[in-house]
């Protein structure tokens, strides 16, 4: 499958767009008509053809533009990429995982040639052809984690595992939903999750941590998380809140369909072999309300989920003020018909909108 890469922006003129294909494969995060936090984890072993679950690291039409946006964020704020000294080996593990996965999953886009520790990496979309020595930092232009995550969509948290906990000791974080690596660096699983409402009381984090610490080599896992973003912004960081926070007030009944985006994170979890660290790639997908409404099942369901979402969650996710306007828009796409279980669009079997 050849991918046509978009030339688009995630800032200023927001020329970001989704093709028909991208809309159809959007990871809609609701498998039923309501939503509550849960330990929603499953194995990450492929999925339907051309879905975002199919490959270990999904590469899509936004790849080249997203990498350009990441470079701009890093130029303004180098602290978005940090790695404590003991995490270098985990960085090499991650570089190997991504290079091996991408070259096997997308042989027409990426090539990896290995002769012992002499490696040659070819990244055709980004025009990179680089030979280096595995495990020798001097042969890369920057640290191994930074090198490879400048060439991979999504944020990456690299967690050290020790003392029965996970520690955020390295990461590349430029496309985050309002949290900061610079703030969280060195924290453990419970510390960085402290701001999340309701989930602690439900025991979700205790069970999630046990599950994560038992993730083994060769058996990755995944889950979806979601929030809302006005304008297709990748970088909704606390550091830049002064720039994007205000845009939430610019929503009107006329522009909401185009400006309001559902932001979905495909979160995966891989055990890293040499370091025994855990890597947590957080891949962000954006889709405007008007594009989502083209799928009747998603229109019906999104209205019901947003309408019934507990106030604490709407507040934490930062859209409580805009919820009435969202519902006003979404209600026109909910005719009350039942929806089929599961996240897939079911365009062939789900009835069209009857109003």
């Amino acid at each position, binding site marked *: 499958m050849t991918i046509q890469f978009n030339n688009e922006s995630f800032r200023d003129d927001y020329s970001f767009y989704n093709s028909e294909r991208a809309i159809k494969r959007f990871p809609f995060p609701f498998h039923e008509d309501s939503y509550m936090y849960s330990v929603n984890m499953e194995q990450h072993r492929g999925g339907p053809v051309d879905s975002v679950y199919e490959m270990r690291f999904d590469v899509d039409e936004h790849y080249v533009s997203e990498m350009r946006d990441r470079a701009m964020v890093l130029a303004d704020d180098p602290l978005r990429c940090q790695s404590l000294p003991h995490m270098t080996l985990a960085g090499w593990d991650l570089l190997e995982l991504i290079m091996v996965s991408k070259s096997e999953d997308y042989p027409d886009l990426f090539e990896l040639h290995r002769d012992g520790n002499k490696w040659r990496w070819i990244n055709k979309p980004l025009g990179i052809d680089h030979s280096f020595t595995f495990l020798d930092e001097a042969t890369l232009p920057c640290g191994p984690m930074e090198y490879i995550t400048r060439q991979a969509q999504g944020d990456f948290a690299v967690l050290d595992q020790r003392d029965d906990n996970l520690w955020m000791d390295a990461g590349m974080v430029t496309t985050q939903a309002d949290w900061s690596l610079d703030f969280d660096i060195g924290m453990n699983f419970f510390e960085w999750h402290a701001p999340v409402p309701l989930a602690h009381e439900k025991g979700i984090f205790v069970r999630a941590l046990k599950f994560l610490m*038992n993730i*083994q*080599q*060769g*058996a990755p896992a995944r889950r979806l998380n979601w929030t809302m973003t006005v304008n297709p912004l990748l970088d909704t960081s606390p550091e830049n809140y002064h720039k994007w926070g205000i845009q939430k007030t610019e929503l009107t009944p006329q522009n909401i369909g185009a400006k309001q985006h559902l932001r979905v994170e495909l979160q995966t979890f891989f055990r890293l*072999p040499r370091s025994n660290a855990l890597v947590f790639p957080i891949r962000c997908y954006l889709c405007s309300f008007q594009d989502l409404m083209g799928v009747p099942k998603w229109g019906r369901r999104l209205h019901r989920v947003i309408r019934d979402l507990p106030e604490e969650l709407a507040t934490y996710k930062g859209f409580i003020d805009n919820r009435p306007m969202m519902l006003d828009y979404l209600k026109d796409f909910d005719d009350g018909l039942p929806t089929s279980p599961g996240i897939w669009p079911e365009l062939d079997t789900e009835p069209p909108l009857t109003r």
Partner: protein
Amino acid sequence: MSGAEKITVKVTEVVPLNELVTRFRFERADGGLLPTFSGGAHTVVEMHDGGITRLNPYSLMSDPMDQTAYTISVRRDDEGRGGSLFMHQQVKAGDEMVISFPVNLFSLDLRAKKHLFLAGGIGITPFLAQIKQLQRFNGNWELHYACRSAALGSYADELTDHYPNETHVYYDDEKQTIDLVNLLDGQPLGTHVYVCGPKGMIDWVRKTAAAEGWPREAIHYEEFLAPQPGKPFEVKLAISNKTIEVGENESLLEAMERENVDAPYLCRGGACGQCETRVIDYAGNFIHRDHWLDDAEHAGGEKIMPCVSRFEGKTLVLDR
């Protein structure tokens, strides 16, 4: 699905090291490369011994970066339930076996300024891989290795030859012992201590270190508990709606597997927590042998780790 991913391997070498210990070398049956791993990892080896399937964990001792083969060393345990006897008596070069992907419950703390290894007997094996890993990255380490006698000191000579400055060997039969208090006292700030050996040794190191004011996080230990034989007992499994008998030479986990009950596990050695099972009702005594539950939980009678723990008494009903 329970346990880690599996790999089919061929036994390519069986080398008796001394009266008690034999080394096995595994290569992938399909000729491919094995996964790399981190020092301290183990693999779970499947053994088909008559009608019984045994799954025993063994530390990987080969170079973690060497993907062509894994090696393990197995100490014969004449008292145990037979897993090590099977390895010693039945397994021959050329056999196919199934092993798990590497799992590490005893990894290095890579923040450490220095790694101080304390090994007792066959507990030397995880350190062999960790030493190879640290050598590659110029890590700072020191080994203190206690064994019964020179004849039973597996790998003691190689270690002394290769790393004369780092290796210190102690022979019980020559009345040599590790002077632990002084050893701990002389360590630079940022040292982490790792101990692998018999339970008594682990307890001694943990207690001594605690008394000397060492932080808990700086002391790492691994003791593989092979499940011990014990009196047969009966268990009721509430979810599966079955009553099963746990035989003298099998663990509760193995008995559930024999009856096709899908019971989770990972380490099968009482360390990972994966097999934790809720007790619904009981009349009798638990024989807890795991490292996962704390003392209060052991006394509480609400949980059991079926991979290593047993029960003696009238009734046991589990949520499984």
